[in-house]
C-alpha cells in the first residue's frame, strides 16, 4: 500500500470540483472549490477508500487545508489500528 498522504491526495484530487496542483497548504474551499456538500462527500469517499469507520465530523468542521485532511485520516487510521 502506498503511503497515506499520497492516497489521500489522490482522493482529494479525484473529488475536487476544480482540479489544481496539491500541496499541504492548498485550501480546500478557495483552492479546489470544495463547498460544504462536497466536503461531506469527500469524507465519505475517504472512509470508503481507506475502509475506515465514520470520520469525526466535529473534526471535519475545522478542516480547511489538504494537510488537515491528511492529518485527519492519519489520526483515524492510527485509532483504528489501536483498537483490539
Amino acid at each position, binding site marked *: 500500500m*502506498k503511503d497515506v498522504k499520497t492516497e489521500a491526495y*489522490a*482522493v482529494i484530487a*479525484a*473529488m475536487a470540483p476544480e482540479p489544481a496542483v496539491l500541496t499541504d497548504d492548498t485550501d480546500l474551499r478557495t483552492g479546489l472549490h470544495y463547498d*460544504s456538500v462536497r466536503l461531506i462527500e469527500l469524507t465519505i*469517499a475517504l472512509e*470508503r*477508500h481507506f475502509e475506515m469507520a465514520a470520520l469525526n465530523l466535529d473534526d471535519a*468542521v475545522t478542516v480547511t487545508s489538504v494537510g488537515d485532511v491528511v492529518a485527519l485520516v492519519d489520526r483515524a487510521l492510527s485509532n483504528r489500528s489501536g483498537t483490539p
Partner: protein
Amino acid sequence: MSRPLTVFVTGAGGLVGAEVVTRLLGAGHRVIGLVHHQTDLVRNNGRPVKGGDLRLVKGDVTRPGLGIPALGEKLDRIVHCAAVTDFGRPDEVYRSINLNGTANVIAFAATAGEVPLVHVSTAYVCGEREGVVTEDELDVGQRSGNLYEESKLRAELLVRKAAADGLPVVVVRPSIVTGDARTGAIRDFKNLYVVLKMITEGKVRSLPGHFDASLDLVPVDYVADVIADATQRFAEADGQTLHAVGTRLRLRDVSDTLAEFPSFQVPNYIAPATFDANRLPDLEKAYYQRVVSLYEGYFRRRVQFDDHAAAAFTGRRRPAGGRAYLRKLLDHAVKAGYLGSALPTIPQALAALQRETR
C-alpha cells in the same frame, strides 16, 4: 427624511446583514458594521456595497464587548444579524455564537446607553409546532427541530428578558431565507439549497415526510426591507415581534416544480412513522444521515406563520411565493452551476482512482 441615524450592524458581512447595510446607507444613515474577517461587504447580487457613510470594525460577537475597542461615537440603533445559520454544527458552536453572541450584544447595547436593539431571529423558533404560529408566541413548550433552532429560541428568550428589564427591542423573524424575489439570485448556497442539491442529483431519493408539509421561503430582499423598516421606524414597532415570512409552499408543489427540470430527480416521500434510514442503500444512508436528516423538520412540519403585526407595521405586501418563485430560485441555481452540475459521484471518483493505480 428625519435626522440620519448611527446604526451598529453585527454580521454586516452576512447574506442578510449586507443587504440591511445597503438599505440603511441608501437612506442616508451612518452604519458601523461589525465583521469577523471581511474587509469588504458584498451584496446578495455579488456587487460590492459602496457609497454612503460606512465604517467597518473587526470584532467577534463571542467575546465580551464584542472584541472591539471603544467606538467613540454615540449609537442610535443596534441591528443584530450575526449568527451561524448552517445546520449540523456542534452544539458549542451554536451556544457560543448564537446564544452567548446575543448575550454579549445585549450587554453591549446596555453599556452603550440602552441603545434600541433590532434582533434577527428565525420564524423556526416555533420548533416542531404545527398549525398557525403567531408573532406574539415564543416559548410554548415546543420541541426544537435541531440545535440551530434551539439556540435561536434561547437567544430570543434572552432578548425578551432584556426587553422586560427595559431595553427597547424589536424582534424580526425571517423564515427560510432564499433568493431575490425578482431574479431568484442568491449569494451563498446554503441550508435549503443543500437539500435541494442532494435531492435533485438523486443522492437522496427517499425522504420521511408528508406531501402536504409546507416550507416557508422568503426572499432575502424582503427580509432586509423589514429589518431596515424596523430600524428606521423603531418607535412604532418597539416591543413587537415581526414575522418576515413568505408564502408557504407545499412539498407536493416542490415535487411538481422539480419535475419540470429534465435533469432533476424528484424524491419519494415516505410516512415518517414507517421510514427507516437503515434500509437505505449504503451511500444514500450516509448522505441522509449526514445532511438531509438535519432538515427533516422541513419535510414534516405543517406550519403557517401569521404576520399581522409585520404587515400592519411595514405596510408591505407579503412576497408572492409559490411555484413561480421556486422556479426562479431553481433557474438561478442551475445558471450559477450549483444545481445540475456534473461532478463525478463518489463511486465514479473512487473507481477512476482504482483504474489509475492498476
